[in-house]
């Protein structure tokens, strides 16, 4: 909350270059030694409409977008300026200015494009600016951009002004521009940048204290989004086949994979629908290629069928579910954690799948790799859950974090030599689905291998794959398949570092529990609560299935009360926890939000303080406290 951090918000219309500008600026801040975090807010529209990106930069590790911000660069919506469309766009034109003011901190800076925006149109602007001690700079960025380049370079002019006002060097920004473009385009942008920088320094007096904080990384950093983390994790897990259908926010992962798989000698397929997409992943995996698919809620709903087929035929696949707010098409560009139950249980029959929900881009990389490893070792579908927040947010991660060899092991596949020795049934088929195994895994063959013929079928089947309804066989096959989750849980507990993240003093009195993308925000809240003398710790859960029973039991036994923080209306993770553990109902309250925006740290702090003080209503608007089972 203090100003030892810069939270820079660039606001304008979709299509005005907000995304690319902010990514470059975030990288420049990162390369100057700071830790960064970006947060993207956009409407379900191609062009025009109010959008913003926030970059939080500080010396310390940064885990969430924080609360509010202290620098607004309001570009205006160039698409709203089409006079023919006035009736439709209405007030869109000035939204980039006035829609952002509520969250601008006291003493903050406003730079607005006076070529596009007029403060006379913003209700009570001058009064509010005075009250809040905002430093307002009206600069005609449009003219500046036109003079040396093109009008669209208003964003570059805005960055030049920002750098001058914050007393930044231009070096890193110039380097990034040189990486991204060339020729006349580069020259024009550099001219606009320098012109804006010099003009601001010459013509304006600065009374504000805000400067770019300083920081120093021990090692080289890269700026990674949740989608990048997933995609790079998949590539490093040896995935060479993806099939998908575009849907926000899953499309980011799909696009990154499609752009890179050919370079890695792999195949990407954009297909007719999500049923086909997941079925293609099954087909490619059946033939021996590490493969994946994915979607967002609505598309994932269609994947239930092939997902169940993968479970029954024991075909390894990895699916990515990038959640957005539902039901149905819901809020297409807003985050929610409302698909958990559908991810855990969709498709007919008993669920037999691995489900992870990473918390940040680095975890997304790690857990996607782990999802592939487990899927192929255990011949089971694995699902990685991200959401609209995580998919689009960028964080800096040490480059060395990704310095791990590609995992090309296709898992439990037999060689032809092994197949020649393996058991076959009277019909001549390889006994691919044997009843007795150590860890539930019956090794498989691949089509085209000698001595490996078998039938894969979505019906219940015997050892050789023939359809079989015999009750004893049914029980043996079901039990073996279901036992994989037990083996996987044991492997995760014993052989790997915990995928759950802990924060706060071990002997804390209270607990905060969260899962997936809200972890960073909750951890920041934990830090603030401890600074204010509240004894609290948190667990950020990533393992949804198999559930981390041991870790959760230990955590819940160690605290008086715990609050589960999640972005949905029906407390889905709390339901899962109570189902899995069968106890602690009286200890658990829920803090829920489902308005299309992720939690902010201070919201969690306020709700938690209210809860331990016995309040039964949320102190924060548009959120809800759901009391403990015994209350």
């Amino acid at each position, binding site marked *: 909350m203090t100003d030892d951090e810069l939270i820079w918000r660039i606001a304008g219309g979709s299509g005005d270059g907000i995304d690319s500008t902010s990514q470059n600026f975030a*990288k420049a801040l990162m390369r100057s030694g700071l830790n960064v975090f970006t947060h993207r807010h956009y409407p379900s529209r191609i062009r025009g409409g109010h959008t913003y990106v926030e970059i939080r930069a500080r010396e310390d590790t940064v885990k969430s977008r924080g609360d509010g911000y202290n620098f607004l660069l309001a570009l205006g919506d160039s698409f709203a300026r089409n006079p023919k469309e006035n009736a439709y766009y209405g007030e869109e034109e000035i939204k980039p200015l006035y829609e952002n003011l509520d969250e601008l901190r006291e003493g903050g800076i406003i730079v607005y494009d006076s070529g596009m925006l007029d403060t006379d149109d913003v209700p009570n602007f001058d009064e509010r600016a005075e009250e809040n001690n905002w430093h307002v700079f009206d600069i005609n960025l449009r003219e500046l951009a036109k003079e040396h380049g093109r009008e669209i370079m208003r964003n570059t002019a805005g960055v030049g002004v920002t750098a001058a006002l914050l007393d930044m060097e231009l070096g890193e920004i110039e380097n990034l521009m040189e990486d991204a473009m060339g020729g006349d385009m580069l020259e024009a942008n550099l001219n606009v940048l320098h012109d804006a920088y010099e003009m601001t320094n010459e013509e304006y007096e600065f009374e504000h204290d805000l400067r770019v904080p300083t920081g120093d990384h021990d090692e080289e950093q*890269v*700026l990674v989004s949740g989608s*990048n983390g997933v995609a*790079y994790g998949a*590539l490093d897990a040896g995935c*060479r*086949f993806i*099939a998908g259908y575009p849907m926000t926010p899953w499309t980011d992962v799909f*696009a*990154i994979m499609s*752009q*890179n798989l*050919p*370079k*890695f*000698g*792999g*195949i990407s397929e954009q*297909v*007719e*629908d999500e049923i*086909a*997409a997941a*079925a*293609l992943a*099954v*087909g*490619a995996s*059946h*033939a021996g*290629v*590490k*493969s994946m698919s994915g979607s967002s809620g609505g598309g994932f709903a269609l994947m239930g*069928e*092939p997902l169940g*087929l993968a479970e029954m*035929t024991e075909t390894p696949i990895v699916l990515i579910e990038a959640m957005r707010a539902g039901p149905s098409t819901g809020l297409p560009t807003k985050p929610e954690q409302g698909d958990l139950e559908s991810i855990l249980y969709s498709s007919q029959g008993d669920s037999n799948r691995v489900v992870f929900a990473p918390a940040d881009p680095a975890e997304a990389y790690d857990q996607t790799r782990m999802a592939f490893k487990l899927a192929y070792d255990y011949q089971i579908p694995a699902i990685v859950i991200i959401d609209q927040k995580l998919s689009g947010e*960028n964080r800096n991660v040490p*480059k060395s974090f*990704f310095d791990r060899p*590609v995992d*090309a092991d*296709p898992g439990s*596949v037999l*060689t032809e030599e092994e197949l020649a020795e393996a058991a076959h049934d*009277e*019909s001549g*088929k390889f006994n691919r689905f044997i009843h007795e195994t150590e860890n539930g895994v019956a090794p498989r063959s*691949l*089509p*085209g*291998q000698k001595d*490996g*013929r078998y*039938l*894969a*079928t*979505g019906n219940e089947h015997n050892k050789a794959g023939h*359809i079989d309804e015999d009750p004893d066989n049914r029980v043996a096959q079901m039990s073996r398949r279901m036992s994989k989750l037990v083996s996987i849980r044991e492997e995760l507990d014993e052989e790997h570092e915990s995928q759950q993240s802990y924060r706060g003093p071990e002997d804390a009195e209270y607990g905060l529990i969260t899962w997936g993308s809200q972890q960073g925000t909750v951890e920041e809240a934990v830090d603030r609560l401890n600074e204010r003398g509240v004894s609290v710790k948190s667990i950020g859960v990533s393992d949804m299935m198999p559930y981390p029973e041991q870790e959760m039991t230990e955590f819940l036994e160690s605290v008086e009360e715990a609050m589960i923080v999640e972005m949905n209306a029906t407390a889905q993770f709390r339901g899962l926890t109570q189902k899995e553990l069968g106890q602690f109902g009286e200890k658990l309250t829920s803090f829920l939000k489902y308005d299309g925006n992720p939690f902010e740290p201070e919201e969690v702090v306020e709700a938690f303080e209210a809860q331990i003080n016995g309040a039964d209503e949320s102190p924060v608007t548009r959120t809800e406290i759901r009391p403990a089972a015994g209350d």
Partner: protein
Amino acid sequence: MSAFNAIGEERDIDRDEYTPGIEPQPTWCPGCGDFGVLKALKQALPEVGRTPEETLLCTGIGCSGKLNSYLDTYGFHTIHGRSLPVARAAKLANPGLEVIAAGGDGDGYGIGGNHFMHTARENHDMTYIVFNNEIFGLTKGQTSPTSPKGHKSKTQPSGSAKTPIRPLSLSLTSGASYVARTAAVNPNQAKEILVEAIEHDGFAHVDFLTQCPTWNKDAKQYVPYVDIQDSDDYDFDITDRREASEMMYEAEDALHEGEVLTGRFYVDEDRPSYQEEKKAIGEMPEEPLAERYFDDDYDWDQKRSYDLLDRHV
């Protein structure tokens, strides 16, 4: 050393190799046309020279889906309507495989209609056999997409108000590069057409008329049939889309009137398969992907690049 030594193996293949050592008792009804497809495939595959182990047969759900149990190749009995997406991905993953998909008319033209259209459009190098008996068999006699208008069943008690699908025309329009119709009652033609279809480099669609003696007693039993290539009454250029289209239209109208026209309707040998198209744009590796996981010499790490991490879409 290859992990897939069965692929491309050249040897004499006995049709009995395709029969499981202990043949499961077929659950098809006596007189079912599906036996005709099984028999034709057992004859066609050795003639093409593909061994059971390099053949992957993907089926849908229904009576046709049981084909896998009676033909001893690698098999994937998928789910209703989904044989094509599974099959075409397997072919992309390992182009050395002989991939054949099979399903019924409900499976292929109803629930899987979208996949049919798009697989044909992309011209995947594979064969698709649709067991067309104009009825849902295994679910006990409901009206299917190919059932004639007015067809009565328990789920369409007043008779269907829908005109039937035109599978041949749909296939051609969608982009299949080989389209034929044969019938279980015509085993010699059926075998010849399957040989051609399997050897064809592109999407080969065979609408295989299979009589259903149990649920479709009123339906024509597809006799007498006419082989359009043998008959002097039908003269058209099977490589010409327009002429093929007219011939298909005639055949589809005739079927509703009780005249069974069978044979090759459209063959395009020039159109590159989907894999070739993908290779041409640099999105399809030269070597089968599935082999790579067993290639000890392949350097996985050499291809790694950190560019991706710092680039954003």
